[in-house]
């Protein structure tokens, strides 16, 4: 059994059939996982100024960049092992760097509150064994964490849920779109307008408090009724909800207080986003957007977005992430105008504009380590085949060595 790093479910029940040091077939992994494990067609090659070179030269050039930068950002981290992340944080400390990860414009707000224990949470195994009411909110798990419903939430028979999903569990979807997940939650799909989550939450809080909500009264009372009856409920908070209420995120805490039998689960995409958030939180008390000086300073201006807009970084090292593909176009020119080091197994948009590229091994396939599942459980990653590529942890070691 090996572990898939296709998403933060980190399915550790995968069989990989290896032939000639290649994964020939996968079993139990979903479509995305299977593709991930079999690997990309375009591996990255070491380069400087877009000219191919050898890896040692790439590392030397990187050392130059990180040493000479006045204010460098170390960014990415969500596709790295816990071990590489820990070393990345150490590197940031030594360099007095800014460190941020993709959670900065993803699920950071949510994970922060979970780690601060402002929101009740539980393990996925608890959900499998006990949950009777499941709410997918702004989350299309079927497409983002494809095995979520089958491994943990809706379909499996758990300790106190032995009679199968039709009888023992109820799945609800709240979304702006009838997603594949909403389709499965037949009869319990609540369509809301874009950016309508806040109003929906307010109305739901009213309904749960015994008041008559103004917003779609009938459906709201019906939903409140289901939620109140839950013995063990879970709200799976997707990126759709997080983005929609980002200006007033604590409204979610207010809702959770009205639902004492519910737990909040962050629906994380990248396989080790939570790992990075936990590691930085342990070190600094913050999940992202930190600048190391004498002490760790947290500020929104240290988010990758604001750092680029305000031009307060003069170089960036990106590990296992493709911000050129995932950030809004208007700030990409700012990203492309500073020295960029790109560490990744595959060619990406970012690697195409990078000053230096360093190819690394595919974690969970060519190198092992550990990672943290969306619910906080530590999962072991496997090395399935051998390759000449350096794991990112080793690249961090090399950089740490070179600067001390």
């Amino acid at each position, binding site marked *: *059994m090996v572990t898939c790093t296709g998403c933060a479910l980190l399915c550790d*029940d*995968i*069989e990989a059939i290896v032939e000639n040091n290649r994964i020939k*077939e*996968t*079993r*139990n*992994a*979903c*479509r*995305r*996982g*299977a*593709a991930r494990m079999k690997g990309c067609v375009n591996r990255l090659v070491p380069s400087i100024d877009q000219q191919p070179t050898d890896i040692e030269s790439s590392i030397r050039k990187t050392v130059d960049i990180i040493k000479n930068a006045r204010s460098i950002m170390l960014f990415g981290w969500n596709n790295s092992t816990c071990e590489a992340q820990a070393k990345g944080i150490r590197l940031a400390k030594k360099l007095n760097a800014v460190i941020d990860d993709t959670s900065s414009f993803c699920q950071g707000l949510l994970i922060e509150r979970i780690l601060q224990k402002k929101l009740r949470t539980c393990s996925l195994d608890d959900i*499998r064994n006990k949950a009777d009411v499941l709410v997918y909110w702004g989350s299309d798990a*079927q*497409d983002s964490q*494809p*095995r979520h*419903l*089958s*491994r*943990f939430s*809706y*379909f*499996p*028979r*758990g300790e106190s849920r032995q009679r*199968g*999903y039709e009888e023992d569990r109820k799945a609800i979807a709240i979304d702006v779109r009838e997603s*594949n*997940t909403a*389709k*499965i939650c*037949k009869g319990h799909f609540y369509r809301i307008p874009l950016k309508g989550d806040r109003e929906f939450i307010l109305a739901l809080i009213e309904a749960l408090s015994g008041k008559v909500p103004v917003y779609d009264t009938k459906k709201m009372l019906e939903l409140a009724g289901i939620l109140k009856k839950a013995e063990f409920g879970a709200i799976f908070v997707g990126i759709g909800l997080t983005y929609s209420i980002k200006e007033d995120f604590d409204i979610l805490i207010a809702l959770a207080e009205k639902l004492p039998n519910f737990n909040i689960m962050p629906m994380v995409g990248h396989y080790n986003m939570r790992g990075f958030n936990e590691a930085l939180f342990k070190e600094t008390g913050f999940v992202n957007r930190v600048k190391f000086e004498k002490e760790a300073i947290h500020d929104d201006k240290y988010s990758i977005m604001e750092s680029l807009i305000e031009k307060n970084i003069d170089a960036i090292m990106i590990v296992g992430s493709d911000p050129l593909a995932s950030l809004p176009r208007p700030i990409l020119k700012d990203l492309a105008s500073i020295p960029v080091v790109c560490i990744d197994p595959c060619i990406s948009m970012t690697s195409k504009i990078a000053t230096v590229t360093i190819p690394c091994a595919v974690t969970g396939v060519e190198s092992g380590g550990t990672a943290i599942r969306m619910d906080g459980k530590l999962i072991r990653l496997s090395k399935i085949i051998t390759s000449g590529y350096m794991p990112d942890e080793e690249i961090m070691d090399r950089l740490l060595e070179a600067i001390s």
Partner: protein
Amino acid sequence: MVTVMELYQLLPRTNCKKCGESTCMAFAVALLGRKKNVAACTPLLEVNFKPQKEKLESLLLPSAGAEETGLIVHPELCTGCGNCVVACPVDVANDPHGAGMGCAPTNDKVIFKVVDGKVIASNIKECRRFGKSRVLCYACIDPCPTGAIEFV
């Protein structure tokens, strides 16, 4: 998948009972469950019912690519989510501590398995739609997000 209604609408709908069933609807149900043959409805043999009869026969014919029992997985639609693996009552019964609990199947007696990110079906003779005490089970069709499973 053909529905009872589709079959019913092609029958003479006279409830003449010549097929041995009390109504045409009952006969349609029997056809779908493959308990009866189209030929049992003798009024259908009349010339003016020829197109209906042919349509019925083609609907009930297992189409190309189908397993002998009529279960088809469309691999291009399947996401490999495994919902069917875990929801199929046969898989639960035959592998309660593996597939039934949402884990990887632990034996070869299950009907559904995900290989290379797509489901393949085997042991289809175990499916509840077939055999002596067949029932019209939808437990793999309903949980499928993309309509990748079909019975013909």
